[in-house]
């Protein structure tokens, strides 16, 4: 009896037969027997069904009730075949056999005493059964499964995660800022929304494609060299090595072969979004959801790239280091700035996003013994990649200011690959007399492909200042080595003060440059005045985008003039930073989780990213970092922002920020993870936070960690000086997982923000996690993607974005204190909405409590008695007792709450 199969329909009786269509076991009661008739000519003789060479005309089948309904059968056991009525098509049984999804209850997995129906928790279990069983085994206990309506979605499509995206987009509605909005003419609001959402989706597709392609290039190279079984191992300090991958696919890759599988998934998802965008129509919310999905895929690709770099290309990583040694590792040894380059030596500069060009070229120069006698530098992201593999590398400028580095004539040869930021490297380098060697399969510059020419001939072309294209990285490396082996002498032309002065005299004051300049710099005013101080001020503010030169009818080389008049500033452009350290350790995160969430000793963790596309002598980011570190924030950086953060020297100590603060993910810690793709480590920290703080599975489970992070984790991201749509797709990825993003100072150039409305109280609600009751909460965090104009706005808004509805008392105190202090410091007045976030007088800093209680009494009409709040003014404007105020507003401290209805605890468990 124990071994007899049980009927899968009633789950009680012994099964005697099996459904001919779906294969489920059936008992005598649940089975159905049906006849089908083949009425083809071979079986019809004088109107009577007869047996033919293909067998009997009539067949009898055993099927289950569901299959009987779905198929067109003649019903009834023992009924004779009818010979009347219209002809009916023959029925082919079994076409879908093997394709149909398992029925409810057909696939069970025991966790403790609970039988989990896999078809309930995974929409399409086909081909995923083993993976889902493994996730259940490793990640879940019976209690947790009983508590929540669990969903496990390996290889998630955008539709799988649309539930969470819709929740976000309902509260943080898109605010479209781009030109697409203005092109709608008399179109309806709905039509405009579709146009704008499509524009957003297309931007995100382009950006994500760059990351995916970059990862694919590197991974394919690694697979060729190491094979699919090469292990992916980050070191003993790293507990969760591939969170961005695991949360979407359901697994952490153990080797290159599994990384390949994960990247294939990302590529397929990217293609799907491209097809959707190509149709040119759709539901705006669905299109925005897909754009957010691309944000997550972008980080998956970046993570694959980072893992490959660390495991296969010897990129610097602290993964194997004990945490106690991490604080001062890596050493602050990387020179930044054009003033740190020894121009008496041959200078090579890399530009672009491909790290393979750097890897092969540096390796070749080291083999030839040329490297020690050269300056090997990088512009933008290339510099950050360089210094993680080559100890003596230098970073010249950020990507956004690459033109400054090129036109300054520092380099003698530039090796360029594709870049997320469109820069006419070849044309601009030619103005400075510098040849460019373009390499890589994705580089798109107007140059003839000379890959077939001999190395020596190619080197000769470069010596004649001719820019060339050589696709193969290895060959390009050989050409570079040949160029420097027989170095022709300095190639770059430093802008000349006399020539610049003559050029400036041609200025007619038409101010075309002013109107072309993204910063509205008064260039002609400075030029016509002939005042070096005025010209130097323009230099300090200049983005070096080159639009002024394009607009100038007199063809004045504006950038050369600025550089020539600011030679002293170039010489003093020298700072130091730590190279990127790679991933963050388990212990750092364990401590950070308690330090921020429970301890509340700082407002939160703020990540600084950006491309350097801003004015202000590159000091904005350093100023922001310093301000945030002084407030006990954890500051994380990656990419070009990491170098800009170091552009500040304390006059008292002579130290840069990197030297003043430890390289640890801790309060008052300043961490540089690496180049542009290394922000995947920062993104992974959002998931680690949920894993460690909430015990939430991060395998094929997106909404839960995102819900946890948004409502508990005080995280914010500042993207300063974004230069391309790549930063927008990163913003989407961060926002989707609950880390709000600030864009500035040119953030409004990008087409879509996600802005909340604090006055729309219907949007600020959460479910009490135990009762399911809907509760009104504070507008926290107030926005998901928000543009600002100044760095003061950025710091103030970053702190405000660290407000979370489920914050405990001390974290809330820290955020209120820092928010009000920053607003007063920078704008001379308190914010008008700080009272929304106050739940108790104990959340006011003890040194300022009396002042704020007095403000509450005088300006907001609260009833205060000594240091107690007797009555508070609620959002309806009514004065109510404090207990009643808290009864109807906000989440009780320590109470579980969620934005996702199905994550409310089940009734059965509560009983």
């Amino acid at each position: 009896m124990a071994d007899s199969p049980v009927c899968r329909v009633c789950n009680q009786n012994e099964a005697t037969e099996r459904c001919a269509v779906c294969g489920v076991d059936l008992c005598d009661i649940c089975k159905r027997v049906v006849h089908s008739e083949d009425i083809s000519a071979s079986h019809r003789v004088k109107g009577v069904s007869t047996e033919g060479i293909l067998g009997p005309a009539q067949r009898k089948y055993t099927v289950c009730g569901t299959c009987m309904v779905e198929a067109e059968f003649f019903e009834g056991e023992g009924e004779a075949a009818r010979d009347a009525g219209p002809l009916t098509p023959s029925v082919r049984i079994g076409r879908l056999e093997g394709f149909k999804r398992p029925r409810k209850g057909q696939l069970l997995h025991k966790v403790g005493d609970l039988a989990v129906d896999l078809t309930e928790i995974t929409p399409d279990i086909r081909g995923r059964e083993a993976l889902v069983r493994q996730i259940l085994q490793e990640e879940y206990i019976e209690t947790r499964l009983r508590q929540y309506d669990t969903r496990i979605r390996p290889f998630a499509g955008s539709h799988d995660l649309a539930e969470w995206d819709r929740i976000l987009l309902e509260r943080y509605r898109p605010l479209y800022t781009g030109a697409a909005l203005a092109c709608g003419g008399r179109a309806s609001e709905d039509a405009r929304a579709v146009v704008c959402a499509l524009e957003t989706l297309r931007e995100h597709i382009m950006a994500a494609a760059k990351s995916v392609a970059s990862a694919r290039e590197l991974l394919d190279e690694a697979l060729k060299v190491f094979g699919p079984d090469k292990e992916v191992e980050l070191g003993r300090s790293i507990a969760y090595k591939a969170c961005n991958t695991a949360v979407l696919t359901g697994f952490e890759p153990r080797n290159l072969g599994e990384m390949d599988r994960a990247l294939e998934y990302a590529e397929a998802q990217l293609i799907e979004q491209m097809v959707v965008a190509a149709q040119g129509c759709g539901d705006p919310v669905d299109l925005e959801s897909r754009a957010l999905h691309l944000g997550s895929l972008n980080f998956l690709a970046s993570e694959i790239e980072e893992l490959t770099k660390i495991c296969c290309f010897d990129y610097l990583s602290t993964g194997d280091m004990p945490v106690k040694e991490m604080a001062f590792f890596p050493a602050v040894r990387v020179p930044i700035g054009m003033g740190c380059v020894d121009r008496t030596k041959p200078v090579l500069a890399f530009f672009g996003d491909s790290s393979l060009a750097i890897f092969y070229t540096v390796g070749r120069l080291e083999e030839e013994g040329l490297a020690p006698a050269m300056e090997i530098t990088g512009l933008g992201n290339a510099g950050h990649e360089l210094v993680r593999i080559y100890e003596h590398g230098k970073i010249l400028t950020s990507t956004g200011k690459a033109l400054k580095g090129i036109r300054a004539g520092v380099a003698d040869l530039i090796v360029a690959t594709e870049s997320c930021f469109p820069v006419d490297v070849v044309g601009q380098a030619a103005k400075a007399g510098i040849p460019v060697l373009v390499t890589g399969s994705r580089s798109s510059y107007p140059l003839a492909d000379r890959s077939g020419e001999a190395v020596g001939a190619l080197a000769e072309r470069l010596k004649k200042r001719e820019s060339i294209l050589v696709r193969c990285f290895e060959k390009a490396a050989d050409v570079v080595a040949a160029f420097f082996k027989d170095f022709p002498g300095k190639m770059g032309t430093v802008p000349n003060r006399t020539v610049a002065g003559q050029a400036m005299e041609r200025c007619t004051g038409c101010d075309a440059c002013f109107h072309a300049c993204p910063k509205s710099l008064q260039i002609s005013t400075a030029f016509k005045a002939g005042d070096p101080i005025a010209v130097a001020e323009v230099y300090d503010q200049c983005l070096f985008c080159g639009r002024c030169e394009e607009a100038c009818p007199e063809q004045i080389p504006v950038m050369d003039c600025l550089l020539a008049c600011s030679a002293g500033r170039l010489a003093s452009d020298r700072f130091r930073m730590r190279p990127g350290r790679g991933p963050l350790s388990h212990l750092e995160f364990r401590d950070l989780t308690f330090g921020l969430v429970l301890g509340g000793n700082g407002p939160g963790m703020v990540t600084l990213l950006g491309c350097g596309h801003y004015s202000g002598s590159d000091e904005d980011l350093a100023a922001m970092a310093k301000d945030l570190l002084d407030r006990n924030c954890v500051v994380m950086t990656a990419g070009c922002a990491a170098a800009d953060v170091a552009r500040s020297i304390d006059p008292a100590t002579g130290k840069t920020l990197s030297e003043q603060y430890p390289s640890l993910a801790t309060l008052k810690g300043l961490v540089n993870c690496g180049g542009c793709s290394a922000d995947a480590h920062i993104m992974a920290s959002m998931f680690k936070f949920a894993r460690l703080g909430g015990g939430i599975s991060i395998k094929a489970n997106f909404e839960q960690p995102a819900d946890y992070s948004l409502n508990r984790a005080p995280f914010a991201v500042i993207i300063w000086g974004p230069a391309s749509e790549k930063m927008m797709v990163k913003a989407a990825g961060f926002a989707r997982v609950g880390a709000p993003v600030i864009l500035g100072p040119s953030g409004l150039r990008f087409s879509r923000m996600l802005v909340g409305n604090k006055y729309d109280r219907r949007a600020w609600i959460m479910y009490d996690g135990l009762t399911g009751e809907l509760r009104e909460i504070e507008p926290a965090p107030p926005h998901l993607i928000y543009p600002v104009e100044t760095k003061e706005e950025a710091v103030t808004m970053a702190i405000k974005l660290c407000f979370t509805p489920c914050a405990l008392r001390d974290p809330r105190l820290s955020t209120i204190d820092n928010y009000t202090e920053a607003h007063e410091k920078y704008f001379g007045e308190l914010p008008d909405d700080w009272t929304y976030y106050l739940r108790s007088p104990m959340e006011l800093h003890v040194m300022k409590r009396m002042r704020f209680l007095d403000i509450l009494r005088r300006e907001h009409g609260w009833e205060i008695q000594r240091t107690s709040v007797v009555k508070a003014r609620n959002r309806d404007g009514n004065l109510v007792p404090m207990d009643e105020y808290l009864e109807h507003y906000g989440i009780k401290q320590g109470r579980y709450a969620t934005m996702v209805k199905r994550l409310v605890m089940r009734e059965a468990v509560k009983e």
Partner: protein
Amino acid sequence: MKRFDARKWASYVRKHNNPLVVAGDGCDRIVLEGTRLGAYAARVAAHLGCPVAATGNTILELRRYDGVRVKKMWLAELFRFLQDGSLEPFLDRPPDLLVLIGYRPEGIHGLVASLRNIHTVHLGPGSLGVADKTMEETTLGEWKRKLDDFVEALSSGGSTHDSYPGRSTASRTRVSGPHRAG
């Protein structure tokens, strides 16, 4: 592009009951022959008797002008509130006209285009095509003269000016400059 006419612009602006001046970061950075752009924001607001929504850091400079009610605001939030019909506490009524100054066109192009039932006047820098009225791209000197003429036209009620490029000799209300510390 229609030729700038200070009187007509002033008349257009005065037709609106609830104008709001919105001052952007350019007000702090742009100086026109010794006059900060923010001064024009203050003068326009004073003559219209309307408040100034000071975005960026402009609050610090603008609050120093007498006769001007100014509040620190956040640009994207302002447009969100305008789209949703939410009213900021310091505004008595929803605005029916925005006078934008200190914003580059590419930065607010889409935001302005999204507005419904709210007119817009863009005082520069640059030319904002989606605005109901906008300055042209001219030299800085020309731009300053237009702004001066516009302020003059507002101060005189917009009834006694010759059209640009002539200047009126009518008296005008002077807005006190920023108080200097010390």
